[in-house]
């Protein structure tokens, strides 16, 4: 048991870090927007936090709020620029932002260490990681039942109807971006602490695609779906490697395809849960 724990503790750690990225992606998705900008927020939070930790020797507890805040600020700026675009174009713009992020990471050597990368000689106990994730979960849970959560759902389901109900779409989506930025920035520094080394490749398109996939896989209509998706997506390659070592990634892709086709609303689907409950309950 102790061995099993030791063997898979880093997998659990990465699963939790990925859960932050997935939640960040979910935050914008829940307000009806597809955005890959989480990667950019994570890069800012990660590099800035790592620099503070290395050069000013700040403890991780102080660094994390700074990372989250910087992510949120950047997200606010991104929201100001991007919310003028309609949905398809915003997805494309956020993808462009990810590509630019890598170029900046390669060239802004003072912040990122450039091609040499950046060593982060700090580590984080897993229970701290779990505790932070728990706090974020509570925040998402409270949010989903709040006025904001309901308004966001309305904007996502039908923006025109939401507008006639007097829901300020632009403001709801800006808030969604800020939440996404804060959680993404936090995820960025947590990934840095898990890897203990950052390079321009650390925050790139792979994170964007796997996290979107994780959210949709887990279920994009409930915040818990993001976490389930992230865990499945982190564990799947490890499991598949044991089963089909040569075609592990191919099997990964096929799993994703099958889930999307047969479970299009993801593993955690509040509507299906409600329907099941309704069916079980005595209706007459």
């Amino acid at each position, binding site marked *: 048991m102790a061995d099993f724990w030791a*063997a898979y503790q880093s997998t659990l750690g*990465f699963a939790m870090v990925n859960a932050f990225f997935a939640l960040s992606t979910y935050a914008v998705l829940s307000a009806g927007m597809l955005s890959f900008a989480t990667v950019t927020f994570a890069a800012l939070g990660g590099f800035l936090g790592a620099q503070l930790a290395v050069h000013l020797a700040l403890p991780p507890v102080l660094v994390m709020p700074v990372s989250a805040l910087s992510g949120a600020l950047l997200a606010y700026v991104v929201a100001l620029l991007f919310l003028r675009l309609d949905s398809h174009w915003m997805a494309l713009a956020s993808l462009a932002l990810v590509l630019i992020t890598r170029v900046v990471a390669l060239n802004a050597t003072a912040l990122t260490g450039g091609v040499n990368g950046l060593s982060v000689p700090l580590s984080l106990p897993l229970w701290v990681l779990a505790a932070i994730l728990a706090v974020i979960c509570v925040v998402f849970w409270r949010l989903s039942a709040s006025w904001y959560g309901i308004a966001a759902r309305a904007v996502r389901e039908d923006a025109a109807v939401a507008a006639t109900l007097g829901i300020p779409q632009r403001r709801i989506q800006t808030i969604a971006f800020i939440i996404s930025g804060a959680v993404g920035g936090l995820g960025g520094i947590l990934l840095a602490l898990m890897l203990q080394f950052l390079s*321009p490749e650390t925050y790139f398109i792979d994170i964007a695609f796997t996290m979107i996939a994780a959210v949709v896989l887990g279920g994009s209509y409930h915040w818990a779906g993001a976490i389930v998706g992230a865990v499945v997506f982190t564990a799947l390659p490890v499991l598949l490697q044991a089963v089909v070592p040569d075609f592990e990634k191919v099997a990964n892709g096929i799993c994703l395809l099958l889930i999307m086709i047969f479970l299009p609303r993801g593993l955690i689907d509040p509507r299906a849960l409600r329907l099941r409950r309704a069916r079980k309950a005595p209706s007459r």
Partner: protein
Amino acid sequence: MRIAKGAALVAAMLLAGGSVLAGPARAAALAPGDYKVGFVAEITGPIAFAGKSFLAGAQLAADEISANGWMGKGTHISVLVKDSASDAARAIQDIHQFIADRSVIATTCCILSPVANSVKPIVASAGIPLVIHGATLPGLPAPPWVYSMTVLPGPKDVATAVKMAETTKPKSVTYFLAADNDAFKARLGAARAALEKMGVKTAGVVSVLTADTDFTAPATQAMGEHPDAILIYTTQAPAVGIIAALRQRGYTGTIVGNDVLSPASVFKKLGPAVVGIPFPIGFSSDLATTPEAKAFVAGYKAKFGNDPDIYSAQGYEAIWFIAQGLRAAGGKPTRATLAKTLAAQHEVTHNVYGGEPITGGQIDTAGTTIVAWSADGKLVPWTGAK
């Protein structure tokens, strides 16, 4: 000289293999059993072509060491493989799984330097020896926990550039640089300084990126500077593309490559375009002279059906080095005692380079062999004659 030394080593090896001969450095014979090495492989992903060679070399070494009980009677060494696909996060997870497996006595990993840098602090704090088999960044080794089996390419590049300048006497040269790779930046700097000291002018430096695929424009740019020679300091894919583009556009001057040109796949791909281009090499199956090197080539061919390259040699040496440590440690070694013993080794005794000293956990090889591909696809010593 080299051959004599090698023969003596083989003799010593046979003696040791047959009996429980106690060498002066050894306290007791290694306890019988299967010693497991965790190999973080890169057999899928962007550099899988090299990753496969590293792993094949390691597997051959394990077979050889186990077959004749080289570490002692009833001892085996085996390689456990986990693929990281060159992803740092995956490599960390793999290493943690090896650390958790109490039967794993040592680990080996990493072709990419950032990945090696991520894994390094973990093995040091967990206390398990790590032999890096591919990453070339200087400063990676940190005994007693971390060792590198990759010869630092910088000095060999300088020697090659100088020899080229001495033989072909160019007036001005142009350099190609993988601008997003700091190791190559340093290698270019060293070669350029040496050539400028010899009075060879720098016509220009053309930058490319490692992920680039189109090299027509960079080749045009370099040829626009009309250099007498072009020196290439990039990773393999760009180097191949640059040579193809230069030759296609009709460049006839001297081209100097680097060690990335040595695998057979490069000749297969480029054919006549790469013939006669000099580059330094640590190991080549065509130039194997010592008995160990010849045995390695023959064994590799028998097991995998093709010739080993420098990558297979490095994977092979990583396992031999760990086995050497285990044998020297004797008794029932732990990860910590194995690390202590490895730190005390001053050379890898069973090597395919004709001498492989270790300083500060970093191996080196004697001299620089400069080779070029011949028209029939063999590596031959480079003479400078066109």
